[in-house]
């Protein structure tokens, strides 16, 4: 923060400056056949600078960043940002965030044990993960990689208009990809455990997940083309929710890139659907005390009982929409400028567990992995088409495995077609948590 404050002193004339400093340490271990294949430890640091100048027709902004905190690099970034201001178009809605009096949640999201845990212990976790997956089922013929990784990141954001925020976060992950074989073909299964510190990782769950997901897919065939209920497991449901989140961004709305634009107060989803963006819930891996402009993160209810209630805004998109920031600025590290977006989405859980949902659905398709999300989903038009693997649902239970199949609809239709939201809230890395989610009437393309 001291370095950030010092940089603010270089403001000239009526310039406003915003400085975002970040530094991090991370470790990545990849294990193969019982020994370390790759091991990386690294520290990195950088600075992102934005300069804003107000004029008669509005404000202009310029930005620059540097992947180091040495004086020359930072001074150069400052000069570049200043120069870049000249070329922007004046915009009456453009402004830096001003302190708005909302108190941050004050969560502790960084755990010192990430740094304190000996490297050998971290390596041992990855070695044990690989061993368990290889030993767990004779049909597992290969473990392509078993990995442990962690990070600690801390940042400071300060601006000449009074914002000051500190960020500190840690995380630890175990991941493993198993390849199972029945002699004629191979199937894969991915297992993952995430926590804020290594002690909380669930190695057994990650191993079991990879084993079950790969072996139960053996013998998978292509189902026939049909329309049916699709039950997304919590992991894939989280992916769907994250995509949906893009359309709930106030920035997408004010820029005419959201199919939700102009629909506040309308029923956009089945009554079982309540979507909340809550970065103040420490259970969410994306939890944060401050947003990307240094305002306190807060809980925002976006869809409630199927009704569209709100969008998430940063300062600029809020001004454009005639409202105030919801503390929802996100930024992609030092090189990214803030934009509005949900950070920690979760649906309000229903009352049924997965078994009960499958029983209620009776016949359908259970999906446990998605591919082509970036190529087959258009968050502007709402078109949704993804490759999936999973199991048919027969008589209310998981049946035979299927692969090389797509499911398709539109995001708009899918929201209205939600029939069950599970009670099994699963916290996952990324923008969204997930629950078992049943959606009626998707097109399944197979043979």
């Amino acid at each position, binding site marked *: 923060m001291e370095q950030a404050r010092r940089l603010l002193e270089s403001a000239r004339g009526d310039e406003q400056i915003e400085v975002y400093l970040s530094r991090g340490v991370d470790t990545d271990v990849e294990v193969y056949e019982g020994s370390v294949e790759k091991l990386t430890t690294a520290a990195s640091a950088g600075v992102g600078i934005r300069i804003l100048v107000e004029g008669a027709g509005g404000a202009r902004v310029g930005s620059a960043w540097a992947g180091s905190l040495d004086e020359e690099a930072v001074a150069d970034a400052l000069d570049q940002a200043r120069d870049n201001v000249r070329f922007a178009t004046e915009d009456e809605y453009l402004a830096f965030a001003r302190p708005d009096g909302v108190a941050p949640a004050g969560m502790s999201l960084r755990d010192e044990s990430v740094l304190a845990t000996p490297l050998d212990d971290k390596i041992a976790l990855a070695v044990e993960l690989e061993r368990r997956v290889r030993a767990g089922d004779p049909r597992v013929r290969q473990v392509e990689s078993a990995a442990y990784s962690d990070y600690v990141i801390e940042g400071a954001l300060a601006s000449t208009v009074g914002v000051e925020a500190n960020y500190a976060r840690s995380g630890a992950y175990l991941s493993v990809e198993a390849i199972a074989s029945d002699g004629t073909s191979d199937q894969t299964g991915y297992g993952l455990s995430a926590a804020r510190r290594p002690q909380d990782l669930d190695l057994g769950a990650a191993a079991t997940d990879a084993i079950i997901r790969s072996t139960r897919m053996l013998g998978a065939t292509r189902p026939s083309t049909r329309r049916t209920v699709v039950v997304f497991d919590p992991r894939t449901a989280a992916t769907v929710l994250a995509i949906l989140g893009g359309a709930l961004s106030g920035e997408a709305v004010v820029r005419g890139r959201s199919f939700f634009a102009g629909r506040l107060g309308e029923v956009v989803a089945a009554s079982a659907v309540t979507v909340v963006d809550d970065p103040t819930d420490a259970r969410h891996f994306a939890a944060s005390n401050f947003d990307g402009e240094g305002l306190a993160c807060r809980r925002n209810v976006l869809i409630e009982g199927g009704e569209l209630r709100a969008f998430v805004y940063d300062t600029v998109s809020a001004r454009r929409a005639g409202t105030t920031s919801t503390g929802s600025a996100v930024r992609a590290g030092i090189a990214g400028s803030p934009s509005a977006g949900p950070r920690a989405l979760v649906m309000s859980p229903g009352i049924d567990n997965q078994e009960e949902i499958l029983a209620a659905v009776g016949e359908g398709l259970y999906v446990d992995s998605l591919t082509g999300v970036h190529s087959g989903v258009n968050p502007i*038009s709402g*078109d949704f088409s993804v*490759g999936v693997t999973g199991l048919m649902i027969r008589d209310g239970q998981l049946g035979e495995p299927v692969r090389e*199949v797509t499911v398709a609809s539109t995001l708009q239709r899918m929201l209205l077609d939600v029939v069950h939201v599970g009670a099994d809230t699963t916290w996952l890395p990324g923008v969204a948590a997930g629950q078992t989610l049943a959606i009626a009437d998707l097109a399944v393309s197979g043979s």
Partner: protein
Amino acid sequence: MANPLVETDVIERVLGAARAFGDFAEVFVEDRVTSSATLDQGRIEELSNGRDRGAGIRVVVGETTGFAHTADLSETGLMAAATAAATIAQRGGGGVRRVALGTRVDHARLAEVLPSDVDKATKVAWLRAANDVARSEGAQITQVQVGLGDSSRRFLVANSEGVFASDHQVRTRFMVSCVAQGDTGMQTGYKPFATTRGYEALTDDVVAGAARHAARQALTKLQARPAPSGDLPVVLAGGSGGILFHEACGHGLEADAILKRASVYAGRVGEQVASPLVTLVDDGTVEGEWGYLAIDDEGYAGTRNVLIENGVLTDYMWDLLRARREGRASSGNGRRQSYQHLPMVRMTNTYLMPGTDDADEIVAQTPYGVYVAQLGGGQVNTATGDFVFGMTEAYLIENGVITAPLRDCNLIGNGPETLARVDAVAADFSMTPGTCGKNGQSVPVGTGQATMRLSSVTIGGTAA
């Protein structure tokens, strides 16, 4: 390299320190300067400049690779990283020696007009020009976003086997995205232009062409009907994106997947893995294309490698470590996103060699199917061979004629099965730029193909 990133004697001492602990050591030094400019809703929103400079040092001991990186390019900083990499490669001892390097091989940059030669006002003018062109295509164009980006990347790589080389890679990108609003909702259009040349490649025609293309695509799609659901013949337009081959077999031919037996193509060299019409090449030497490289990020020359010839698998793609293990030479496919990343086997420009059929005839001889004018991205599971790729501009083919536009969707297939179904390849070859993601690292790649047909692919739409 007129102004070396790090002096040769420093590299020699650092490499010597790293090598003392392992079988192999490498120092990779990089200085990347980037700039970008965006226009949205008619406004120049923001110009941004960035600089990333640092070194990545890897040390290999047996099968273990230790890696450390630093933004500190002083000898002290580099020595600290070398020691860290060596330590984590888990072997102590050994005296520090100096690795003697020969004469550095400097590669001439391809770019003529460097990003730093172009003033910001000129860049901004291109953004405005594209916006004007796109909006003039129709009143239903409601949103236009234009982006311009460039990067000037100088790097130096030296290893304990005597490689000592430098390169200066310049990349220039221009993208136009449009949204059109119609009675049935919004549709999108997108056109990227990307080259490993400098600003000499970005002409007024390129700018206007990209804008027109993106706008027309969005407008056309306003009439789009839901794509079919199920198996149909598919004609891919020339240059629509060879992403099909990138996903259906490219990733599965990367040596890391092969050596771990995590690819359906492992152990199949010499076998028929595709239709005889398929000759697939990965080629880092195609100057100007997005995946071009004079040398890869391990210092080995970009190469033209034939992967599949007349349907028969001929070879895989190799980086240095995988090639060393097999006692062969790198194929120039060792790439990394930045000095903060370890290199791995990656594609460069991957393309299907053109055939002899006539593009129009291929369509005319397809009674009912889908014509894909532009592909989006894709994804593959190399172990099962199952892959998807998205279509972002497509039409129905009815009675041999291209008819109604279709909404976006994915297509799905299995690599070897789909490659066997290539039943026509035309001569109208062209290439498309893309970004390939693998294990968290993104690198620029090119893909290419002529108009071609697959006798059957699963279309992931919603229409019966």
